[in-house]
């Protein structure tokens, strides 16, 4: 998937295989993985002659945002789907917590 995200254009299976530097995967393995990704909606594919060309359906950032928003979100079914360390905090409350942190003699957050 990283290969598809980094590519500016859609890629054939052979091109993806070529760019997978870390492992020497069989052509059919790459084909199967790409096929599954497209079935799950993460990649789009289109016919190009006799081969399929694949590209990422959404940018990496879009997926990260979806993942994190559902993690930070408090509404609906997601409440039960995961357990968050800290539930949502209002701006005023965050400032109060910051003050409490400083009162404890701790350094302010590093960033």
């Amino acid at each position, binding site marked *: *998937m990283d290969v598809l995200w980094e590519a500016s254009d859609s890629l054939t299976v052979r091109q993806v295989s070529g760019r997978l530097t870390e492992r020497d995967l069989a052509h059919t393995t790459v084909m199967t993985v790409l096929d599954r990704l497209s079935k*799950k909606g*993460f990649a789009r594919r289109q016919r190009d002659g006799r081969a399929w060309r694949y590209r990422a359906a959404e940018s*990496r950032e879009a*997926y*990260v*945002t*979806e*993942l*994190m*928003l*559902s*993690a*930070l*979100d*408090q509404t609906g*079914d*997601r*409440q*039960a*789907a*995961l*357990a*968050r*360390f*800290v*539930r*949502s*905090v*209002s*701006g*005023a*409350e*965050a*400032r*109060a*917590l*910051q003050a*409490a*942190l400083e009162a*404890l003699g*701790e350094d302010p*957050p*590093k*960033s």
Partner: protein
Amino acid sequence: MTAVFLLAAVAAGCVQASVVLADARWTHRSPAAAIVLWQAIGLGWGLATVGTLIGLATAGQGSGVADGALNLLARLTEGRLSLPSVGLLTAARLTCLAAGLVLFSLLVYILLAAFAAVLRARQRQRMLLSLLAHGDPKVPGALVVDYPAAAAYCLPGLRSAIVISAGTLDLLDSAELAAVLAHERAHVRERHDLVLLPFIALLSVLSWCQAARAAHRAVALLVEMHADDRARSQRPARELATALLRVGAAGGCRAPSGALAVSEPETAGEVAQRVTRLLRPASSLPVPALMLIGATAALAVTVPVAVLVMPF
């Protein structure tokens, strides 16, 4: 009729108890016991409310509620209650029976529907994580997602995962990260998601109801406090407290657009309460109080069951 009055009293008592319990502060001293009590009250309320309706249907027949309901159903299926000939009383009985059965199916259905929705959301999360997340030596056993805001959560279930954003890695030192991991592992190990599920399911149909919202909020906070206690048994409390403060303080300032901008007044003060608890721990409730809680929990479930089964 005694059975109906008893069941109605139990149902009303459970609602009243939930209102009291939602505001109570002593529950924070022994969250585990309070969680058990909440579960029992929830179950007791469901049994007693369904039982009251079915009890109305079978009242005055000289048999138990469960027996009477089965009897009524048997007569219905045998066709001995043909519609034109039924009296007003029988019609009222059948209405109550139907209402009871519908309520029962509804409660079971919303529980299953909530569970299915949870499984779907988790499936999507797992799929995204498998594409996006990577491990990090700073947080062994957890998945890291490159995202600037502070977020830490666990994905409970058979294939559980603890997820930490890169922003959290930057924010916390290694001791605080270990405390966060201990907290999340407690959630995963003790299946706290299942503890909360009935309350979330109820909330999905009673979102307008103040008591249901308060109940859900109270149980969610107790679950967090219980996980805090578990983490505290492995790590110094101060590490977890500063981790909470840092993540909390960062959460408000660096809200991603739209997500956290909406302030949630209902959860206001929860982080501060948890921090205070960690830094100045109150002693847990004395044994007699815990036994009283256990007895109340047992009664909330056994009384409606007994009334339903026993003949009156």
